[in-house]
Protein backbone atom coordinates (compact mmCIF):
# COMPACT_ATOMS: atom_id res chain seq x y z
CA UNK A 1 0.00 0.00 0.00
CA UNK A 2 1.72 3.14 -1.17
CA UNK A 3 -1.21 5.50 -0.59
CA UNK A 4 -0.12 8.50 1.45
CA UNK A 5 -2.44 8.74 4.44
CA UNK A 6 -2.96 12.12 6.07
CA UNK A 7 -5.84 12.53 8.50
CA UNK A 8 -8.69 10.01 8.69
CA UNK A 9 -12.05 9.56 10.37
CA UNK A 10 -13.87 6.84 12.25
CA UNK A 11 -16.53 5.52 9.90
CA UNK A 12 -20.04 5.09 11.26
CA UNK A 13 -23.05 3.70 9.37
CA UNK A 14 -24.80 7.10 9.57
CA UNK A 15 -21.99 8.60 7.48
CA UNK A 16 -21.57 5.89 4.85
CA UNK A 17 -23.09 7.90 2.01
CA UNK A 18 -21.13 11.07 2.85
CA UNK A 19 -17.95 9.01 3.18
CA UNK A 20 -18.48 7.46 -0.23
CA UNK A 21 -18.94 10.84 -1.89
CA UNK A 22 -16.08 12.64 -0.15
CA UNK A 23 -12.96 13.10 -2.25
CA UNK A 24 -10.61 14.96 0.15
CA UNK A 25 -6.96 14.14 -0.60
CA UNK A 26 -5.34 11.65 1.74
CA UNK A 27 -8.64 10.89 3.53
CA UNK A 28 -8.97 7.41 5.00
CA UNK A 29 -11.46 5.68 7.27
CA UNK A 30 -11.15 3.46 10.30
CA UNK A 31 -13.62 0.79 11.41
CA UNK A 32 -13.77 -1.80 14.16
CA UNK A 33 -13.45 -5.16 12.39
CA UNK A 34 -15.74 -6.78 14.98
CA UNK A 35 -18.65 -4.78 13.52
CA UNK A 36 -18.00 -6.25 10.07
CA UNK A 37 -17.45 -9.88 11.04
CA UNK A 38 -20.58 -11.09 9.30
CA UNK A 39 -21.04 -13.74 6.67
CA UNK A 40 -22.51 -11.35 4.13
CA UNK A 41 -25.08 -8.67 3.58
CA UNK A 42 -25.15 -4.88 3.44
CA UNK A 43 -22.54 -4.20 6.14
CA UNK A 44 -19.80 -5.86 4.13
CA UNK A 45 -21.13 -4.43 0.89
CA UNK A 46 -21.00 -0.87 2.31
CA UNK A 47 -17.49 -1.36 3.55
CA UNK A 48 -16.30 -2.77 0.23
CA UNK A 49 -17.87 0.19 -1.54
CA UNK A 50 -16.03 2.65 0.74
CA UNK A 51 -12.85 0.63 0.25
CA UNK A 52 -13.16 1.16 -3.51
CA UNK A 53 -12.81 4.91 -2.91
CA UNK A 54 -10.65 5.29 0.21
CA UNK A 55 -7.96 3.46 2.20
CA UNK A 56 -9.26 1.66 5.28
CA UNK A 57 -7.82 0.96 8.71
CA UNK A 58 -9.04 -2.00 10.78
CA UNK A 59 -8.85 -1.08 14.45
CA UNK A 60 -9.56 -4.14 16.57
CA UNK A 61 -10.93 -4.09 20.09
CA UNK A 62 -11.30 -7.79 20.81
CA UNK A 63 -8.14 -9.79 20.09
CA UNK A 64 -7.50 -9.61 23.84
CA UNK A 65 -3.73 -9.61 23.33
CA UNK A 66 -3.05 -9.03 27.05
CA UNK A 67 -5.13 -12.00 28.18
CA UNK A 68 -3.12 -14.88 29.60
CA UNK A 69 -4.23 -17.04 26.69
CA UNK A 70 -3.57 -17.31 22.99
CA UNK A 71 -5.84 -15.27 20.69
CA UNK A 72 -9.08 -17.10 19.89
CA UNK A 73 -8.31 -18.97 16.63
CA UNK A 74 -11.86 -18.42 15.34
CA UNK A 75 -11.59 -14.68 15.90
CA UNK A 76 -8.17 -14.56 14.30
CA UNK A 77 -9.54 -16.44 11.30
CA UNK A 78 -12.39 -13.94 10.92
CA UNK A 79 -9.90 -11.06 11.16
CA UNK A 80 -7.61 -12.66 8.59
CA UNK A 81 -10.59 -13.04 6.26
CA UNK A 82 -11.43 -9.35 6.57
CA UNK A 83 -7.81 -8.31 6.04
CA UNK A 84 -7.67 -10.40 2.85
CA UNK A 85 -10.98 -9.05 1.65
CA UNK A 86 -10.47 -5.35 2.43
CA UNK A 87 -6.67 -5.02 2.12
CA UNK A 88 -6.56 -2.30 4.78
CA UNK A 89 -3.72 0.24 4.87
CA UNK A 90 -3.41 -0.23 8.64
CA UNK A 91 -4.34 -2.91 11.20
CA UNK A 92 -4.19 -2.16 14.90
CA UNK A 93 -5.12 -3.53 18.32
CA UNK A 94 -4.89 -2.49 21.96
CA UNK A 95 -2.51 -3.21 24.81
CA UNK A 96 -5.36 -4.65 26.84
CA UNK A 97 -7.61 -7.68 27.29
CA UNK A 98 -11.34 -8.18 26.81
CA UNK A 99 -12.12 -11.83 26.03
CA UNK A 100 -11.44 -14.20 28.87
CA UNK A 101 -12.51 -17.82 29.36
CA UNK A 102 -15.20 -17.61 26.70
CA UNK A 103 -16.79 -14.34 27.84
CA UNK A 104 -16.30 -11.06 25.99
CA UNK A 105 -16.10 -7.97 28.23
CA UNK A 106 -16.73 -5.05 25.88
CA UNK A 107 -13.99 -2.78 27.21
CA UNK A 108 -10.20 -2.41 27.12
CA UNK A 109 -9.16 -3.91 30.44
CA UNK A 110 -5.88 -3.21 32.29
CA UNK A 111 -3.27 -5.59 33.72
CA UNK A 112 -0.02 -5.42 35.69
CA UNK A 113 2.83 -4.81 33.23
CA UNK A 114 5.01 -7.65 34.44
CA UNK A 115 7.69 -9.49 32.51
CA UNK A 116 5.35 -12.48 32.47
CA UNK A 117 2.70 -10.32 30.76
CA UNK A 118 5.32 -8.98 28.34
CA UNK A 119 6.28 -12.48 27.21
CA UNK A 120 2.65 -13.54 26.78
CA UNK A 121 1.68 -10.40 24.86
CA UNK A 122 4.75 -10.58 22.62
CA UNK A 123 3.81 -14.17 21.78
CA UNK A 124 0.22 -13.14 21.08
CA UNK A 125 1.31 -10.28 18.81
CA UNK A 126 3.65 -12.59 16.91
CA UNK A 127 0.90 -15.16 16.44
CA UNK A 128 -1.41 -12.44 15.17
CA UNK A 129 1.15 -11.00 12.76
CA UNK A 130 1.98 -14.50 11.48
CA UNK A 131 -1.68 -15.21 10.96
CA UNK A 132 -2.44 -11.89 9.23
CA UNK A 133 0.90 -11.96 7.38
CA UNK A 134 1.47 -8.31 8.23
CA UNK A 135 2.68 -5.89 10.87
CA UNK A 136 0.10 -4.56 13.30
CA UNK A 137 0.18 -1.44 15.47
CA UNK A 138 -0.42 -1.67 19.24
CA UNK A 139 -2.26 1.16 21.01
CA UNK A 140 -1.66 2.58 24.48
CA UNK A 141 -4.98 2.36 26.39
CA UNK A 142 -6.55 4.91 28.75
CA UNK A 143 -5.94 4.18 32.45
CA UNK A 144 -8.29 4.56 35.40
CA UNK A 145 -6.69 2.35 38.07
CA UNK A 146 -3.54 2.37 40.16
CA UNK A 147 -2.46 -1.24 39.75
CA UNK A 148 0.23 -2.61 42.04
CA UNK A 149 2.99 -4.71 40.60
CA UNK A 150 3.88 -2.94 37.34
CA UNK A 151 7.46 -3.95 36.55
CA UNK A 152 7.78 -1.79 33.41
CA UNK A 153 6.78 1.71 32.39
CA UNK A 154 4.25 1.57 29.58
CA UNK A 155 6.52 3.32 27.05
CA UNK A 156 9.37 0.87 27.81
CA UNK A 157 6.91 -2.05 27.69
CA UNK A 158 5.72 -1.00 24.23
CA UNK A 159 9.32 -0.47 23.04
CA UNK A 160 10.18 -4.00 24.16
CA UNK A 161 7.14 -5.42 22.32
CA UNK A 162 8.37 -3.65 19.17
CA UNK A 163 11.87 -5.07 19.67
CA UNK A 164 10.63 -8.62 20.21
CA UNK A 165 7.89 -8.81 17.56
CA UNK A 166 8.60 -6.12 14.97
CA UNK A 167 5.13 -4.70 15.57
CA UNK A 168 4.39 -1.00 15.18
CA UNK A 169 2.66 1.35 17.60
CA UNK A 170 -0.48 3.43 17.64
CA UNK A 171 -0.12 6.44 19.91
CA UNK A 172 -3.47 7.65 21.24
CA UNK A 173 -2.74 11.18 22.43
CA UNK A 174 -6.10 11.56 24.16
CA UNK A 175 -5.42 8.36 26.13
CA UNK A 176 -2.10 9.86 27.24
CA UNK A 177 -3.87 13.03 28.41
CA UNK A 178 -6.63 11.09 30.20
CA UNK A 179 -4.22 8.61 31.82
CA UNK A 180 -1.81 11.37 32.88
CA UNK A 181 -4.62 13.24 34.64
CA UNK A 182 -6.05 10.08 36.24
CA UNK A 183 -2.75 8.54 37.28
CA UNK A 184 -0.87 11.74 38.10
CA UNK A 185 1.99 11.84 35.63
CA UNK A 186 3.11 14.42 33.09
CA UNK A 187 1.59 13.76 29.66
CA UNK A 188 4.44 15.54 27.92
CA UNK A 189 7.02 13.26 29.57
CA UNK A 190 5.10 10.21 28.33
CA UNK A 191 4.92 11.61 24.78
CA UNK A 192 8.67 12.41 24.88
CA UNK A 193 9.48 8.88 26.02
CA UNK A 194 7.26 7.16 23.43
CA UNK A 195 9.24 5.21 20.79
CA UNK A 196 8.46 7.66 18.00
CA UNK A 197 10.20 5.81 15.16
CA UNK A 198 7.69 2.98 15.39
CA UNK A 199 4.48 5.03 15.44
CA UNK A 200 2.38 3.89 12.47
CA UNK A 201 -0.74 5.83 13.47
CA UNK A 202 -1.92 8.52 15.88
CA UNK A 203 -5.36 8.77 17.47
CA UNK A 204 -7.01 12.01 18.56
CA UNK A 205 -10.33 11.92 20.42
CA UNK A 206 -12.49 13.74 22.91
CA UNK A 207 -13.02 12.81 26.52
CA UNK A 208 -15.47 13.58 29.31
CA UNK A 209 -15.47 13.93 33.07
CA UNK A 210 -16.81 11.32 35.45
CA UNK A 211 -20.37 12.35 36.41
CA UNK A 212 -19.56 12.01 40.13
CA UNK A 213 -15.88 12.85 40.41
CA UNK A 214 -15.62 15.54 37.74
CA UNK A 215 -12.09 16.54 36.69
CA UNK A 216 -10.55 14.05 39.13
CA UNK A 217 -11.51 11.20 36.80
CA UNK A 218 -11.44 11.75 33.03
CA UNK A 219 -13.05 9.17 30.77
CA UNK A 220 -11.93 8.28 27.25
CA UNK A 221 -15.47 8.57 25.94
CA UNK A 222 -14.95 9.48 22.25
CA UNK A 223 -18.11 11.57 22.46
CA UNK A 224 -16.75 15.10 22.12
CA UNK A 225 -14.41 17.16 19.92
CA UNK A 226 -10.66 16.80 20.52
CA UNK A 227 -9.72 18.92 23.56
CA UNK A 228 -7.27 21.87 23.22
CA UNK A 229 -4.73 20.21 25.55
CA UNK A 230 -4.72 17.14 23.29
CA UNK A 231 -4.16 19.25 20.17
CA UNK A 232 -1.18 20.88 21.93
CA UNK A 233 0.35 17.49 22.80
CA UNK A 234 -0.26 16.36 19.23
CA UNK A 235 1.56 19.37 17.78
CA UNK A 236 4.57 18.69 20.00
CA UNK A 237 4.50 15.02 19.02
CA UNK A 238 4.48 15.47 15.26
CA UNK A 239 7.09 18.23 15.53
CA UNK A 240 9.31 15.63 17.15
CA UNK A 241 8.55 12.49 15.12
CA UNK A 242 7.19 13.96 11.86
CA UNK A 243 3.77 13.48 10.26
CA UNK A 244 1.95 10.16 10.72
CA UNK A 245 -1.53 8.97 9.69
CA UNK A 246 -3.83 10.61 12.24
CA UNK A 247 -7.37 9.59 13.13
CA UNK A 248 -10.13 11.77 14.52
CA UNK A 249 -11.80 9.06 16.60
CA UNK A 250 -15.46 9.59 17.35
CA UNK A 251 -17.86 6.85 18.50
CA UNK A 252 -20.64 8.60 20.43
CA UNK A 253 -22.74 11.78 20.26
CA UNK A 254 -21.95 11.66 16.58
CA UNK A 255 -21.94 15.12 14.91
CA UNK A 256 -22.50 15.71 11.21
CA UNK A 257 -19.95 14.42 8.72
CA UNK A 258 -19.07 18.04 7.85
CA UNK A 259 -18.26 18.82 11.47
CA UNK A 260 -15.95 15.81 11.70
CA UNK A 261 -14.35 16.90 8.42
CA UNK A 262 -13.63 20.32 9.99
CA UNK A 263 -11.74 18.63 12.84
CA UNK A 264 -10.01 16.43 10.34
CA UNK A 265 -8.92 19.50 8.31
CA UNK A 266 -7.29 20.96 11.43
CA UNK A 267 -5.25 17.76 11.85
CA UNK A 268 -4.37 17.85 8.14
CA UNK A 269 -3.13 21.42 8.45
CA UNK A 270 -0.90 20.51 11.39
CA UNK A 271 0.37 17.45 9.50
CA UNK A 272 1.19 19.68 6.53
CA UNK A 273 3.19 22.01 8.77
CA UNK A 274 5.07 19.07 10.29
CA UNK A 275 5.83 17.77 6.80
CA UNK A 276 7.15 21.17 5.70
CA UNK A 277 9.30 21.32 8.83
CA UNK A 278 10.67 17.83 8.22
CA UNK A 279 11.53 18.61 4.58
Amino acid sequence: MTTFLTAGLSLKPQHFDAALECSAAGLWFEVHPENCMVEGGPRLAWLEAVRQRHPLSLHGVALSLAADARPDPAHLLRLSGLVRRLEPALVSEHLSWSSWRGAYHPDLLPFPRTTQALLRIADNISRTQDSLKRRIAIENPAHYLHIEGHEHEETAFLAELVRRTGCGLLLDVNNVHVSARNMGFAAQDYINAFPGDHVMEIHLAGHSQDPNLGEALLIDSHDAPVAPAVWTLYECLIRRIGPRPTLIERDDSLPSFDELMRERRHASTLLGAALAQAA
Partner: protein
Amino acid sequence: MNIVAGSLANFQDAFAAALRLDAGSPPPAIAALARQPGFQVYRNTVARSCIDALQANYPTINRLVGDEWMRAAAAVYAGSTLPDRPMLLAYGADFADFLRHFEPAASLPYLPDVARLDRCWTEAHIAATEAGLNHGELGMLSGSRLDRLRLVPHASARWHWSGEQPAYTIWSRNRAAGTETGDIDWHGEGALLTRPQDHVTWRALDFAGCVFLDCCKNSGSVADAAQAALDADVNADLGRMITTLLEAGAFSRIEHYRQS
Protein backbone atom coordinates in the same frame (compact mmCIF):
# COMPACT_ATOMS: atom_id res chain seq x y z
CA MET B 1 -3.16 -7.35 47.83
CA ASN B 2 -0.62 -9.48 46.10
CA ILE B 3 -1.92 -10.18 42.67
CA VAL B 4 1.43 -10.24 40.99
CA ALA B 5 2.62 -13.22 43.00
CA GLY B 6 -0.08 -15.11 41.09
CA SER B 7 -0.16 -15.33 37.37
CA LEU B 8 -1.67 -12.97 34.85
CA ALA B 9 -4.46 -15.54 34.61
CA ASN B 10 -5.21 -15.16 38.34
CA PHE B 11 -5.43 -11.41 37.92
CA GLN B 12 -7.83 -11.81 35.02
CA ASP B 13 -10.01 -14.32 36.86
CA ALA B 14 -10.35 -11.96 39.81
CA PHE B 15 -10.84 -8.84 37.66
CA ALA B 16 -13.53 -10.52 35.53
CA ALA B 17 -15.34 -11.74 38.66
CA ALA B 18 -15.26 -8.26 40.18
CA LEU B 19 -16.60 -6.76 36.94
CA ARG B 20 -19.65 -8.99 37.13
CA LEU B 21 -20.55 -8.02 40.67
CA ASP B 22 -23.24 -5.38 40.97
CA ALA B 23 -23.19 -5.78 44.72
CA GLY B 24 -21.36 -7.95 47.22
CA SER B 25 -17.70 -8.51 47.81
CA PRO B 26 -15.17 -8.81 45.02
CA PRO B 27 -12.57 -11.58 45.27
CA PRO B 28 -10.04 -10.75 48.04
CA ALA B 29 -7.15 -10.64 45.56
CA ILE B 30 -8.72 -7.65 43.87
CA ALA B 31 -10.76 -6.01 46.64
CA ALA B 32 -8.51 -2.95 46.97
CA LEU B 33 -8.42 -2.42 43.21
CA ALA B 34 -12.19 -2.75 42.92
CA ARG B 35 -12.62 -0.07 45.61
CA GLN B 36 -10.85 2.56 43.51
CA PRO B 37 -13.31 4.92 41.78
CA GLY B 38 -11.77 4.04 38.42
CA PHE B 39 -12.97 0.44 38.68
CA GLN B 40 -16.52 1.65 38.21
CA VAL B 41 -15.51 3.07 34.81
CA TYR B 42 -14.82 -0.47 33.58
CA ARG B 43 -18.00 -1.86 35.16
CA ASN B 44 -20.05 0.92 33.59
CA THR B 45 -18.48 0.51 30.15
CA VAL B 46 -19.02 -3.25 30.07
CA ALA B 47 -22.64 -2.93 31.26
CA ARG B 48 -23.45 0.01 28.98
CA SER B 49 -21.96 -1.66 25.90
CA CYS B 50 -24.05 -4.79 26.51
CA ILE B 51 -27.23 -2.80 27.17
CA ASP B 52 -26.67 -0.56 24.12
CA ALA B 53 -26.17 -3.65 21.97
CA LEU B 54 -29.39 -5.32 23.17
CA GLN B 55 -31.32 -2.10 22.69
CA ALA B 56 -30.00 -1.87 19.12
CA ASN B 57 -30.59 -5.56 18.38
CA TYR B 58 -34.18 -5.58 19.70
CA PRO B 59 -35.61 -2.29 18.37
CA THR B 60 -39.20 -3.55 18.28
CA ILE B 61 -39.12 -4.63 21.92
CA ASN B 62 -37.61 -1.25 22.76
CA ARG B 63 -40.40 0.54 20.90
CA LEU B 64 -43.08 -1.51 22.65
CA VAL B 65 -41.78 -1.18 26.21
CA GLY B 66 -39.86 2.12 26.07
CA ASP B 67 -36.20 2.94 26.77
CA GLU B 68 -36.36 2.72 30.53
CA TRP B 69 -38.00 -0.73 30.71
CA MET B 70 -35.82 -2.05 27.89
CA ARG B 71 -32.56 -0.89 29.47
CA ALA B 72 -33.59 -2.27 32.87
CA ALA B 73 -34.44 -5.67 31.34
CA ALA B 74 -31.23 -5.59 29.28
CA ALA B 75 -29.20 -4.88 32.43
CA VAL B 76 -30.66 -7.97 34.12
CA TYR B 77 -29.92 -10.08 31.02
CA ALA B 78 -26.37 -8.73 30.69
CA GLY B 79 -25.77 -9.35 34.38
CA SER B 80 -26.02 -13.08 33.79
CA THR B 81 -25.12 -13.40 30.11
CA LEU B 82 -22.03 -11.65 28.80
CA PRO B 83 -21.42 -11.83 25.05
CA ASP B 84 -19.74 -15.10 24.07
CA ARG B 85 -18.03 -13.42 21.11
CA PRO B 86 -17.03 -9.86 20.29
CA MET B 87 -19.56 -9.28 17.49
CA LEU B 88 -22.08 -7.31 19.50
CA LEU B 89 -24.51 -7.10 16.61
CA ALA B 90 -25.14 -10.80 17.23
CA TYR B 91 -25.38 -10.45 21.03
CA GLY B 92 -28.53 -11.59 22.81
CA ALA B 93 -29.38 -14.69 20.76
CA ASP B 94 -31.57 -16.03 23.59
CA PHE B 95 -33.07 -12.73 24.74
CA ALA B 96 -36.53 -14.01 23.70
CA ASP B 97 -36.15 -17.00 26.05
CA PHE B 98 -35.00 -14.65 28.79
CA LEU B 99 -38.14 -12.53 28.32
CA ARG B 100 -40.31 -15.66 28.51
CA HIS B 101 -39.09 -16.19 32.07
CA PHE B 102 -38.68 -12.53 33.05
CA GLU B 103 -41.32 -11.88 35.66
CA PRO B 104 -41.89 -8.17 34.84
CA ALA B 105 -42.75 -9.25 31.26
CA ALA B 106 -45.49 -11.66 32.39
CA SER B 107 -48.25 -9.20 31.52
CA LEU B 108 -46.93 -8.90 27.94
CA PRO B 109 -47.14 -12.53 26.77
CA TYR B 110 -46.47 -11.61 23.11
CA LEU B 111 -43.07 -10.05 23.93
CA PRO B 112 -40.92 -13.22 23.57
CA ASP B 113 -42.35 -14.03 20.12
CA VAL B 114 -41.89 -10.44 18.98
CA ALA B 115 -38.28 -10.64 20.22
CA ARG B 116 -37.84 -13.82 18.16
CA LEU B 117 -38.79 -11.82 15.06
CA ASP B 118 -36.24 -9.10 15.89
CA ARG B 119 -33.69 -11.88 16.18
CA CYS B 120 -34.82 -13.34 12.84
CA TRP B 121 -34.23 -9.89 11.30
CA THR B 122 -30.67 -9.72 12.69
CA GLU B 123 -29.85 -13.23 11.49
CA ALA B 124 -31.24 -12.48 8.02
CA HIS B 125 -29.34 -9.16 7.93
CA ILE B 126 -25.92 -10.71 8.63
CA ALA B 127 -26.36 -14.02 6.81
CA ALA B 128 -24.14 -15.05 3.91
CA THR B 129 -24.95 -13.49 0.56
CA GLU B 130 -26.38 -16.13 -1.80
CA ALA B 131 -28.08 -16.18 -5.16
CA GLY B 132 -31.67 -17.38 -5.22
CA LEU B 133 -33.20 -20.07 -7.40
CA ASN B 134 -32.73 -19.60 -11.13
CA HIS B 135 -35.30 -20.36 -13.83
CA GLY B 136 -33.66 -23.64 -14.77
CA GLU B 137 -33.92 -24.89 -11.22
CA LEU B 138 -37.52 -23.77 -10.97
CA GLY B 139 -38.30 -25.87 -14.02
CA MET B 140 -37.11 -28.96 -12.15
CA LEU B 141 -40.05 -28.60 -9.81
CA SER B 142 -42.57 -29.34 -12.55
CA GLY B 143 -40.56 -31.92 -14.46
CA SER B 144 -39.26 -34.22 -11.73
CA ARG B 145 -40.51 -36.44 -8.98
CA LEU B 146 -40.84 -34.31 -5.89
CA ASP B 147 -39.67 -37.13 -3.63
CA ARG B 148 -36.29 -36.91 -5.37
CA LEU B 149 -35.78 -33.19 -4.95
CA ARG B 150 -34.93 -31.05 -2.00
CA LEU B 151 -35.46 -27.30 -1.66
CA VAL B 152 -32.54 -25.77 0.27
CA PRO B 153 -33.54 -22.75 2.38
CA HIS B 154 -31.70 -19.54 1.54
CA ALA B 155 -28.93 -18.62 4.02
CA SER B 156 -30.91 -15.55 5.05
CA ALA B 157 -34.35 -17.20 5.37
CA ARG B 158 -35.78 -17.18 8.90
CA TRP B 159 -39.29 -18.11 9.93
CA HIS B 160 -41.13 -18.29 13.21
CA TRP B 161 -44.56 -19.56 14.19
CA SER B 162 -46.14 -17.95 17.23
CA GLY B 163 -48.86 -20.36 18.30
CA GLU B 164 -50.98 -18.14 20.49
CA GLN B 165 -49.92 -14.55 19.86
CA PRO B 166 -50.39 -12.28 16.83
CA ALA B 167 -46.65 -11.63 17.07
CA TYR B 168 -46.15 -10.88 13.39
CA THR B 169 -48.81 -8.17 13.28
CA ILE B 170 -47.45 -6.57 16.45
CA TRP B 171 -43.87 -6.84 15.23
CA SER B 172 -44.44 -5.56 11.69
CA ARG B 173 -46.48 -2.59 12.97
CA ASN B 174 -43.73 -1.62 15.40
CA ARG B 175 -40.48 -2.60 13.70
CA ALA B 176 -40.53 0.71 11.85
CA ALA B 177 -42.48 3.77 12.85
CA GLY B 178 -45.49 2.76 10.79
CA THR B 179 -48.93 4.29 10.75
CA GLU B 180 -50.94 1.10 10.57
CA THR B 181 -53.35 0.82 13.46
CA GLY B 182 -56.66 -0.89 14.02
CA ASP B 183 -57.84 -3.85 16.04
CA ILE B 184 -55.66 -6.90 16.14
CA ASP B 185 -57.30 -10.27 15.56
CA TRP B 186 -55.89 -12.26 18.49
CA HIS B 187 -54.71 -15.59 17.12
CA GLY B 188 -51.46 -17.35 16.32
CA GLU B 189 -49.37 -16.05 13.41
CA GLY B 190 -46.20 -16.94 11.57
CA ALA B 191 -43.69 -14.86 9.64
CA LEU B 192 -41.00 -15.35 7.01
CA LEU B 193 -38.01 -13.01 6.76
CA THR B 194 -35.59 -13.14 3.84
CA ARG B 195 -32.81 -11.04 2.42
CA PRO B 196 -32.82 -11.76 -1.31
CA GLN B 197 -30.67 -8.65 -1.99
CA ASP B 198 -29.38 -6.08 0.51
CA HIS B 199 -32.57 -5.50 2.44
CA VAL B 200 -34.43 -7.79 4.81
CA THR B 201 -38.03 -8.29 3.70
CA TRP B 202 -40.88 -9.96 5.58
CA ARG B 203 -44.33 -11.40 5.10
CA ALA B 204 -46.91 -13.41 7.01
CA LEU B 205 -46.60 -17.19 6.75
CA ASP B 206 -49.18 -19.68 7.94
CA PHE B 207 -48.50 -22.71 10.10
CA ALA B 208 -48.33 -25.09 7.13
CA GLY B 209 -45.72 -22.84 5.48
CA CYS B 210 -43.57 -22.82 8.63
CA VAL B 211 -43.81 -26.62 8.85
CA PHE B 212 -42.90 -26.92 5.15
CA LEU B 213 -39.76 -24.84 5.70
CA ASP B 214 -38.87 -26.76 8.88
CA CYS B 215 -38.95 -29.97 6.86
CA CYS B 216 -36.81 -28.44 4.07
CA LYS B 217 -34.30 -27.25 6.68
CA ASN B 218 -34.17 -30.75 8.16
CA SER B 219 -33.22 -32.14 4.74
CA GLY B 220 -36.63 -33.53 3.84
CA SER B 221 -37.60 -33.93 0.19
CA VAL B 222 -40.14 -31.62 -1.41
CA ALA B 223 -42.69 -34.46 -1.14
CA ASP B 224 -41.88 -34.93 2.59
CA ALA B 225 -42.26 -31.18 3.19
CA ALA B 226 -45.57 -31.11 1.31
CA GLN B 227 -46.88 -34.04 3.33
CA ALA B 228 -45.77 -32.39 6.60
CA ALA B 229 -47.55 -29.19 5.57
CA LEU B 230 -50.75 -31.11 4.82
CA ASP B 231 -50.44 -32.97 8.14
CA ALA B 232 -50.21 -29.56 9.84
CA ASP B 233 -53.21 -28.19 7.94
CA VAL B 234 -55.30 -30.47 5.78
CA ASN B 235 -56.69 -27.44 3.94
CA ALA B 236 -53.27 -25.97 3.09
CA ASP B 237 -53.04 -24.63 -0.48
CA LEU B 238 -49.65 -26.07 -1.39
CA GLY B 239 -49.40 -24.40 -4.80
CA ARG B 240 -50.06 -20.97 -3.39
CA MET B 241 -47.74 -21.60 -0.46
CA ILE B 242 -44.79 -22.66 -2.62
CA THR B 243 -45.37 -19.66 -4.91
CA THR B 244 -45.25 -17.38 -1.86
CA LEU B 245 -42.03 -18.98 -0.63
CA LEU B 246 -40.41 -18.75 -4.06
CA GLU B 247 -41.41 -15.11 -4.48
CA ALA B 248 -39.96 -14.31 -1.06
CA GLY B 249 -36.62 -15.83 -2.03
CA ALA B 250 -36.83 -18.47 0.69
CA PHE B 251 -34.67 -20.98 -1.21
CA SER B 252 -31.14 -20.88 -2.55
CA ARG B 253 -31.11 -23.99 -4.69
CA ILE B 254 -32.72 -27.33 -5.52
CA GLU B 255 -30.74 -30.47 -4.83
CA HIS B 256 -31.31 -34.05 -5.82
CA TYR B 257 -32.56 -35.76 -2.73
CA ARG B 258 -30.52 -38.52 -1.19
CA GLN B 259 -32.26 -40.40 1.55
CA SER B 260 -29.86 -40.70 4.50
